């Protein structure tokens, strides 16, 4: 009797031990799989960096530092310089940010302070939908709808307006093509607007109500509360959002490819066609014959990668600082 029950217990013990061991093994396997996947994310970014460096080695070793300072881009003589695309990238992104930041902050103020509560979510979603529209849609819209509009109405007016004004007249010199640096900047501004808006709105929401209420309590207007309390409190977070938008604008490809005009030169006029790093790669990569040509295009990619990496890293660092403050 006792022997039987002892045998039963010990066999139960054994199956139990086996189950526990099996659990431990599967747990270890699962843990290893998740860890490997996490490490794969790091490997991906490392792989991107290594492959870009490897691919651009030929061009960079041939042209050296002058690759960054040469304007000429001549596939026939195989003489390549990145100055024009770098110039175009920086100018279009900078103008886009200058336009998008005030509008983005304005929308965030509207959403957090002015908008009636039931409308808040629909309007917020509508603005975020702008971020969901694929960039090629902005491109086709920009080329067929927006650029002709600029060409026939806005650009002639601006040229006429600034005629004879020193400086501005060469900045806005004709002829009005419709496509060009300014058109690209405007499209980019629309595209980065939702990123700036949603992050600004999020950091505005982190301002403690008591801070705002005490400002209202001493008689501040809504604008004064925004200007003196909310914006100073969230400055780092807004900067993070702006940097994130800038990172997007710098790397944006398809929309710009449609409306930039793809001219490898640097013009004083914002109405002139130009090019950006990403547009050059998108346009020429599949047609590039010759290793040096391809390698030069990959070098452009490497430059873009480095610029956006630095900008995005800064953006994340700033947003982390805001996060840690709200966490504390």
């Amino acid at each position, binding site marked *: 009797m006792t022997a039987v029950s002892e045998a039963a217990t010990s066999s139960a013990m054994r199956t139990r031990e086996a189950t526990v061991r099996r659990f431990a093994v*599967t747990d270890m396997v699962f843990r290893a799989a998740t860890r490997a996947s*996490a490490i794969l994310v790091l490997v991906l970014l490392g792989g991107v960096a290594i492959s870009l460096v490897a691919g651009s080695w030929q061009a960079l070793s041939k042209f050296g530092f002058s690759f960054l300072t040469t304007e000429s881009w001549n596939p026939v003589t195989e003489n390549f310089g990145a100055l024009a695309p770098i110039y175009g990238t920086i100018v279009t992104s900078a103008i886009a940010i200058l336009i998008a930041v005030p509008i983005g902050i*304005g929308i965030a103020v509207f959403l957090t*302070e002015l908008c009636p509560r039931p409308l808040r979510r629909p309007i917020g979603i509508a603005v975020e939908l702008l971020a969901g529209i694929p960039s090629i849609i*902005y491109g086709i819209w920009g080329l067929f709808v927006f650029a002709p509009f600029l060409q026939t109405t806005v650009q002639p007016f601006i040229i006429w307006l600034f005629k004879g004004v020193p400086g501005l007249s060469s900045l806005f010199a004709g002829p009005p093509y419709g496509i060009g640096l300014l058109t690209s900047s405007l499209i980019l501004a629309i595209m980065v607007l939702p990123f700036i808006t949603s992050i600004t709105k999020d950091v505005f929401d982190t301002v403690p109500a008591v801070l705002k209420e005490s400002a209202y309590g001493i008689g501040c207007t809504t604008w004064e509360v925004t200007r003196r309390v909310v914006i100073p409190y969230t400055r780092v977070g807004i900067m993070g959002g702006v940097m994130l938008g800038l990172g997007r604008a710098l790397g944006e490809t398809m929309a710009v490819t449609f409306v930039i005009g793809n001219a490898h030169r640097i013009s004083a006029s914002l109405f002139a066609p130009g090019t950006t790093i990403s547009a050059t790669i998108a346009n020429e990569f599949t047609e590039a014959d010759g290793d040096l040509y391809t390698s030069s295009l990959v070098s452009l*990619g490497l430059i873009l990668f480095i610029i956006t*990496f630095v900008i995005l890293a800064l953006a994340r660092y700033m947003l982390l600082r805001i996060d840690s403050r709200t966490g504390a």
Partner: protein
Amino acid sequence: MSTAQSLHQSRKRKNAVMMALCVIAAGIGLAWLALILGALLYKGLSGVNLAVFTEMTPPPGDAGGLLNAIYGSIVMTVIGIIVGTPIGVLAGTYMAEYGRFSRLTTVVRFINDILLSAPSIIIGLFVYELMVRPMGHFSAIAGAVALSILVIPVVVRTTEDMLNLVPNALREAGTAIGAPRWVVIRSVAYRAALSGIVTGILLAIARISGETAPLLFTALNNQFWSSNLNAPMASLPVTIFQFALSPYEEWQQLAWTGALIITLTVLGLSIFARSLTGRREDR
């Protein structure tokens, strides 16, 4: 007294002006959305007919449809999701469950956020160097890999965020009845975070189904029907790119129709994804 009053007046006026500007800013944002959608509907709807979904992309100057491009887009998106989602979910699981406080998680989160916003054309170049150059030709599978690299960071981010929202008491309850860690994760944490993780996957689908730049020099394009994963394959975005920049009217019309299809798909997906988790944000 009068100076105080005029100061008060000027502050109120300034406030009114600035608030009006904020309302105008919101108006501008909404107006762009309306303008773009309006143009898409206006130009795209007139080209929607049965042929779009049943015929191949035509040679220049001919009528035709977008069937092979739609098919290619679906195939590459599906493969991209199938490859990218498990990796993303597992990585997010590590960050939220096993390694929540480890240094690796902090580093991965930082790098993942950079990958999330990295220019997609760079990913295209990477896959070109990784697959197209060694294989010697463009292929649909390279395009799908490029898309899966775009899927991973989106899924990692949402999975980690959503698992972090699962209350620890639930996990402790699971552990207390003797369930090992991975069973707790699978049957408790995943289940509690399911709608959030699904949202992340839907957003990832929305993101890659409109991507053009990473496909340009991985999957390239194909004018004909092809289901060979080892050969170039057409996709809707690349076809739109090619057709829109062409001088042929039929091609441009097809480009607009394709643009309308993509936009409706993407916007539908993102609205649906938001509606899954939307309630919670309202509090």
